């Protein structure tokens, strides 16, 4: 097989930049559809014994007077039940009890499927802590990869990670799907996957370099990517198969999470081959400070 992965890098970089820019545009225009975990609020899902229309539900809600103009009543996305989902500002336990009591007075078999109430500080804090952790982790990973490989590999690997995160965040801005903390867990999973995927290719580059069979760095990179290709394809096939299965059959609760993984794993596989490794050559050519000591 003879394919110039590295030489055509401008094409791959352009594709990625376009995708990321589109994502960032949507992010800027509309932002992300932040759920209660980030914004605060209550999300209560009720189950009934019989069909209850949204208007009937709204009537009861009006009687309770939660004083919330922005309250949204929508059908539950759980299958096989008569369910209604309510989103409001964060309700106190008293208000929530009052609402449940009012519904019980009107309808039969009222059960809270779930009730989540979050005051905004917690979501913000979680996000900040996760970001802080990632910054620290990135620094340590740079050190680790620099020792085990070379500094430029560390930067290339982190660029690939950043690429994947931006693609996924952009995707969620584009489809405007509601995100909550599982999305954060999904992003973290993608970061892990991306690093794993990239390091394995870098390992091959490191190994091939020792044999000094290749006439230049570009050929070394291409040969290493190609040698690793069967593994890249088989691994992504297998993991995507697993994730797709769970996405389809895992139920509503984890759909957003699995979608995050699905998009992220695609991006991760792509970036290991088309971004991280070719970027090594860009660094080699453009940033003398990070150039390898021996050719």
């Amino acid at each position, binding site marked *: 097989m003879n394919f110039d992965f590295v030489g055509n890098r401008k094409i791959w970089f352009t594709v990625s930049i376009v995708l990321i820019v589109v994502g960032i545009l949507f992010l800027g225009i509309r932002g992300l559809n932040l759920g209660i975990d980030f914004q605060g609020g209550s999300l209560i899902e009720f189950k009934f014994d019989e069909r209850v229309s949204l208007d009937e539900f709204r009537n009861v809600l009006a009687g309770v007077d939660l004083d919330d103009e922005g309250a949204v009543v929508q059908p539950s996305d759980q299958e096989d039940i008569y369910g209604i989902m309510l989103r409001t500002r964060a309700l106190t336990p008293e208000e929530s009890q009052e609402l449940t009591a009012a519904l019980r007075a009107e309808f039969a078999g009222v059960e809270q499927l*779930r009730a989540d109430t979050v005051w905004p500080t917690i979501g913000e804090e979680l996000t900040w802590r996760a970001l802080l952790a990632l910054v620290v982790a990135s620094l*340590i990973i740079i050190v680790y990869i620099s020792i085990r490989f070379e500094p430029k590999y560390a930067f290339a690997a982190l660029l690939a990670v950043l690429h994947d995160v931006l693609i996924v965040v952009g995707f969620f801005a584009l489809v405007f799907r509601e995100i909550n903390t599982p999305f954060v*867990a999904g992003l973290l999973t993608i970061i892990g996957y991306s690093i794993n995927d990239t*390091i394995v290719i870098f390992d091959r580059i490191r190994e091939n370099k020792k044999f000094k069979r290749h006439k230049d760095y570009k050929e070394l990179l291409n040969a290493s990517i190609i040698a690793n290709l069967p593994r890249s394809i088989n691994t992504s096939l297998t*993991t995507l*198969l697993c994730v797709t299965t769970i996405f389809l059959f895992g139920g509503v*609760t984890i759909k957003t999470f699995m979608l995050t993984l699905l998009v992220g794993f695609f991006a991760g596989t792509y970036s290991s081959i088309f971004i991280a490794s070719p970027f090594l050559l860009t660094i080699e050519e453009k940033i003398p400070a990070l150039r390898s000591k021996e050719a």
Partner: protein
Amino acid sequence: MGWKQKQILKAILVIFVIAISVASFWHSGINLGLDLAGGTHVVLEAQDTGSREVDAQTMTALNRIIERRVNQLGLSEPRIQRSGDRRLIVELPAVDNPDRAIEVIGRTAQLTFRDDDGEVLMTGEHLVDARSEYDQMYRNPVINFQLDDVGARRFQQITQAMIGEPMQIYLDDEWLYTGTVQSAISDRGQIRGFGSLEEAEEIAILLREGALPVPLSIEESRTVGPTLGQVSIDQSLRAGALGLLFVGIAMVALYKLPGLIATLTLGIYGMLVIGLLAGLQAVLTLPGIAGLILSIGMAVDANIIIFERIKEELRFGKTLRASVESGFRRAMTAIIDANITTLITALILAYFTVGTVRGFAVTLIIGIFASMFCALIITRILIDFAYDFKVLKGGHNFVGARR
């Protein structure tokens, strides 16, 4: 050591790992998080007051009082833990009225006796006992309370001066009852005016177990009802089993006998992870499952890396034995570096974060150790077995090895 002894030793190691895992699961079981099993998760934050700043001592006191309140409510297996400097996380199993439970648990419950102008005469700090009862004479639910010696003396002085005047009783800002002082009262008193015995009992619990030293604010509460909890477990299990099944099928299709071995290894990986989760008493939550999925992906990847390497070595014309040997050796650095890098991320996440993200990080750490052990040791042993028993052959089993 002879060939046979080595074989036996390896077989024992594999069986030992499986046995320990199964025993650990048998003994402790898996703690399912509330998002899977159903229940209520509340995060409470202690607030500074003008007179008291939140410190470790305050938190210990809060923890103790809340624990007693939860126990008094008759809830089974509650979990209460400190989180950071000023937070408590309370986890309750599925209850009938979670909102009510949250309300009772998080309430400051400072009892005050006030005069007609609302001036506080005395607080409930000297209260030693409070019982809800159905008062036969008065024909209503009441709370009978008892004061300690200091409280009794002071209460006597206060009530002595107030004979014939109304005295108001408040719990925090909630008015409970106003009664006219008939005579001087010392150590025993009664609060009336409750709508139901249930209501009286809830307030009696709060009085008996004492007021919180500082107020708590509810930061977050999540309740998963029993119906949804069961649905989540069923769906996750079904999807997880299907996912693993498809991975197994794909591995066998791609790598034939070695693929089957990898699938077996994945099975052992599954048992090992369950055993570790049970042994470490870790709580498995939805984000935790995310961590496991990533580590399964990495375990599969490790096997694929090894098999592709063995195929390459075969292509170079090496013997099967030598190919297996060098295939594993060459795959080793890639697997170890990749896993360590991910492990660094997971460790730092576990250290810096709480709740959701931490759950993810902890299972990921467990998963990484299990997956490295399985890929580098268990797969190796099983491949060696297959070779020794002459079922593993070069070209045909490693399909695609021949050019």
